[in-house]
């Protein structure tokens, strides 16, 4: 009857992911404030915002369609399922085989697809700007992501995230050039996907610069809360993805006892803290790019990914 | 076929080629008609001689037809047409007389080479005869190609027919069908030309082919 404990572990992962996401966002904002010698909002501020928004009434535009009201829940569901499948503190979870890395990226693609549609539903120019730019970024970010997946799959011989992490954990894989390139490309894509500073400024509502915010401009109340939660979930997902592949130490291997799980959780928390801190310092150290510099930025990520894949194709040793 | 008969036939055929050359040289219509009549006379002599040499009586009829129609009837008819149309003086060749003559010589040489490749054991008279006939045919065609005037083109066509008659009669024993067909074509040529010339005259007031060309198909 090994199913029940596996189910419990999978359940804890899904809840853990849900709870940690706003905390990570709060922590990053806190560190950014501290770096610029500002006190900044408390770390738990995102939780308070979510609760406040949930209680408010949702104000919808006159010509908003039924799709406008369904999309937030769809985005939240797809992002949450993707986040639940990425190993955080343990690998080999019960449902990890339902979708491999390509499927997870496709789920995020679906979330972006619906978000872009939501942006265009009300028929305002800002929604159009947001969707059009988001979709342009995606045309370069997604192929780069798939190239990274190819590299990882070619190294690990499988696209299943758990087996990739397992292989990385068992240190069968030394330091490799293609892995280095894949890491840099993954970081660049993560920045673009989560609308962080060089690509898009998450903090501002300045009409001309915002991309992600422009699409969710018309949302309010509970819909906005769900979308904000989904956004922070996505940030957490990318963090745990980088952590589980490139910093696999501490991940609980299936079959080991509860202690390993606890060790895994502690290690995961530490990784998140380090990741959040690095992200905050990087964001304060760099200014936002012009919109049409981003394609070169993402083009570089795509070329790095393609180069990494090519190296893997050419010979085993790279 | 003793030597003398062969030499005379050979002489007459050569004479016919010579007359064709003379026709190429003419640049007056009346002179052209006279030379054409001369060619018809030489042709009928050659046919008559062939008749005597092959003792094939039917050839005499062809000689007679050639003499009466081609030597007398057609030149006179054309003469009268030219007189009515009043185009005695206009005859201009496309290419100057010099180059035409050169081309004529080249053509005769070509027909000699082509015909002489025929293996010698075929009876020698046939070979020379056909060579001369081919030369007359090619010269007639050359004449049609290098003249603007409809009448001279028709005369060129008629000299081609003379070449054919020479070839036909040279072929010993060719059944009567050939004679009828040759006569048939001469007859038809005469009638059609007559009708056409009058109609062209009536329509275009000239028989110069260039005037006719204005109405080439689909020009408008």
């Amino acid at each position, binding site marked *: 009857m090994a199913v029940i404990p596996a189910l419990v572990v999978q359940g804890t992962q899904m809840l853990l992911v849900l709870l940690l996401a706003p905390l990570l966002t709060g922590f990053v904002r806190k560190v950014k404030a501290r770096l610029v010698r500002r006190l900044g909002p408390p770390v738990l501020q995102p939780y308070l915002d979510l609760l406040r928004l949930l209680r408010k009434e949702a104000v*919808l535009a006159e010509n908003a369609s039924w*799709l406008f009201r369904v999309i937030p829940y769809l985005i939240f569901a797809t992002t949450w399922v993707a986040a639940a499948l990425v190993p955080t503190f343990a690998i080999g979870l019960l449902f990890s085989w339902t979708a491999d890395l390509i499927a997870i990226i496709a789920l995020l693609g679906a979330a972006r697809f619906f978000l872009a549609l939501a942006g265009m539903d009300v028929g305002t120019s800002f929604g159009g700007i947001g969707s059009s730019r988001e979709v342009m970024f995606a045309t370069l970010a997604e192929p780069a992501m798939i*190239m990274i997946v190819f590299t990882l*799959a070619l190294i690990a011989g499988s696209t299943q995230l758990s087996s990739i992490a397992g292989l990385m954990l068992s240190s069968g894989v030394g330091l490799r050039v293609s892995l280095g390139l894949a890491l840099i490309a993954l970081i660049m894509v993560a920045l673009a996907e989560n609308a962080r500073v060089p690509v898009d400024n998450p903090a501002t509502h300045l009409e001309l610069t915002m991309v992600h915010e422009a699409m969710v401009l018309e949302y309010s109340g509970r819909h906005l809360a769900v979308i904000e939660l989904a956004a922070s979930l996505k940030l957490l997902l990318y963090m745990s993805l980088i952590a589980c592949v490139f910093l696999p130490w501490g991940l609980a291997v299936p079959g080991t006892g509860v202690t390993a799980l606890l060790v895994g959780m502690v290690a995961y928390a530490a990784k998140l803290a380090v990741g959040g801190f690095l992200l905050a310092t990087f964001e304060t150290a760099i200014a936002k790019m012009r919109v049409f510099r981003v394609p070169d930025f993402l083009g570089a990520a795509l070329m790095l990914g393609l180069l990494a894949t090519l190296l893997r194709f050419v010979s085993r040793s790279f | 076929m003793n030597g003398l008969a062969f030499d005379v036939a050979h002489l007459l055929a050569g004479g016919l080629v010579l007359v064709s050359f003379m026709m190429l040289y003419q640049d007056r219509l009346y002179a052209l008609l006279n030379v054409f009549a001369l060619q018809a006379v030489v042709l009928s002599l050659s046919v008559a001689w062939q008749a005597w040499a092959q003792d094939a009586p039917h050839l005499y009829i062809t000689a007679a037809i050639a003499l009466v129609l081609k030597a007398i009837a057609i030149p006179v008819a054309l003469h009268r047409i030219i007189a009515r149309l009043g185009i005695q003086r206009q005859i201009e060749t496309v290419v100057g007389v010099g180059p035409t003559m050169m081309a004529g010589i080249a053509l005769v040489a070509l027909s000699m080479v082509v015909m002489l490749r025929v293996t010698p054991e075929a009876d020698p008279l046939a070979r020379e005869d056909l060579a001369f006939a081919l030369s007359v045919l090619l010269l007639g065609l050359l004449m049609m190609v290098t003249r603007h005037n409809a009448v001279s083109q028709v005369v060129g066509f008629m000299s081609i027919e003379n070449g054919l008659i020479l070839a036909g009669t040279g072929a010993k024993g060719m059944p009567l069908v050939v004679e009828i067909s040759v006569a048939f074509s001469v007859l038809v040529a005469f009638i059609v030309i007559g009708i056409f010339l009058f109609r062209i005259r009536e329509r275009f007031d000239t028989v110069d082919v260039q005037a006719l060309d204005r109405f080439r198909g689909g020009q408008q």
Partner: protein
Amino acid sequence: MAVIAELWCVALLLGTAVLAVIVRAPAASRAVYGVTLAATLIGFAAAFSTAVAGTTAVTLPLGLPWIGARFRVDMLSAFFLIVVNLGAAAACLYGFGYGRHEHEPKRVLPFFPAFLAGMNLVLLADDAFTFLVSWEFMSLSSWALVMSHHREPGNAYAGYVYIIMASVGTLALLLGFGLLAGPYGFYGFAEMRANAATPMSAGLVLGLALFGAGSKAGLVPLHVWLPLAHPAAPSHVSALMSGLMTKVAVYAFLRIVFDLLGPPEWWWAVPVLAVGGVTTVLGVLYALMQNDLKRVLAYSTIENIGLVFVGLGLALAFAASGFPAAAALALTAALFHVFNHALFKSLLFFGAGAVLTATGERNMERLGGLIHAMPVTSVVVLVGCVAISALPPLNGFASEWLAFQAILLSPQLPQWGLKLLVPAVGALLALAAALAAACFVRMFGIVFLGRPRTPAAAQAREVDRWSQSAMIIVAAMCLIAGILPGAVIDGLAPVVQSLVHDRMPVQLGIPWLSTIPIAESRSSYNGLLVFLFVTASASLAAYAIHHLASHAVRRAPAWDCGFPNAGLATQYTADSFAEPIRRVFGAYVFRAREHVDMPPPGDVRPAKLTVERHDLAWEFIYGPIAAGVSLAADRLNRMQFLTIRQYLSLVFLALVSLLLVLALWP
């Protein structure tokens, strides 16, 4: 005997076509579509029975006198018969409703069943002559359908370009079959399989097959007619042409290269992969630049065909290097995408037809906000857009995922050329997938969402029940194929076995109905569970929030950063939505240049932004050919107006030259 049933179905179709010409009954359209529907269902059933009963063949005393007309239904043709008849049945169902709006039914009704008969015959043919007769009969009837709206300005030109390209393709196939048949004319497919072609001529046949089938399917250099012809036909016919005729072209390529040509060489894969990869990206980039709804769909057909040919190229590479299991995976991915594309492209063209009947408009710039007026159509088209953008729960993603798995197997290939080409093609595939998502966000967003840009869009009304039912059925099939890819993969196994003599592992027994292409450890994907998780968590979240937090809603004018009641023109249009992508990709693909004409301050002249775009295929291939032909025509035209004397000199020169040849002959 399945083949006899298929032939009866074709005979029934041809009979309906003839009747449709003669009979002038008012309810002719309903009768024709009804009988055609029945015929396609017969064909569908007969094809299924082949999977059970096995190959059946028959020879009729028609066609070439000494070999007769041979017909054969084997696994490959059975699969394509299923795809064609399924799509055709949906089109007939759709035709019941859509056919009523046709103002010149007399030009569409006879050719619709004839077109289907042509397609079925191509799939049944078992000798070169019957194959090409039915192939060209299919092109002829579809040309007539394209010409059915001959009064609209662009259609005559589209029909002309189409028929020329169709005959170029047929002649290429004819030359290919000529090579296969050899000088003594063994035109039967059985004889062609027997005497294997020499490597050199096999390469040539592959090139000709790629050219011939590619021109009909729409591979890039040969695609120019497709976006002109498909939109020109009535919508349910465009669905047939885009969804099914391109698949018949893929069948032709499969039949010639995989079946008749015998064991492949490795370098065969290079042209197929290269052309396939380039086609995917260029196809979808063209689609992004179009404003005509049906033309966007036609260009996206080109993209999906490119994906199919990449799968076929991979299968060729693996089969040549002795990896039958990998070849089976790649071929299954390609055939799965053939099945999927037939479904969602027909669905999208039905949607486009519905929009056309509701608003009378095909230009996306004049539509918008149709989701309010046409709820059913918008849901169904949304499903189509999600499917074609290869997003998880639906079937588009399943075949895309298999294609990526096949690419990941390719490091085993020893040849250096393929080692460099396959990753590049993989990158092109990924790029095309992302661009496709962008294209269909744009299409759905501009047409269905936002506010209606013209009164025509504002007064749109939902289409009739028949069209809705056809669309709903096809959308349901897309969902089912997306959720249960394992069932489709098992269905394809016999076809793949017959072509590359190996198959993918059986998917039936795997727990939780997930799909495992190669091995458990390697990768697996469970469409059903992903779909269940997403819907469960979405409804759970919605339920929890509605009950625990608030479910109050208030309608108010759109916020739009404080700009009150913005005009309709401030909405994003199709061009402006694609402008960033055009600026990033279009610069060197189409040499797209933007010329901004900004009047100096104080000048009342309006500012003008013009986008100059070049279609490279037209400018570098078709333009020069057309110019060459017209130049030659002008040059030779003078020959018509020579004088009699000059014609005589021609005869004279011919005679003299021939005599010279005789004189100089050795």
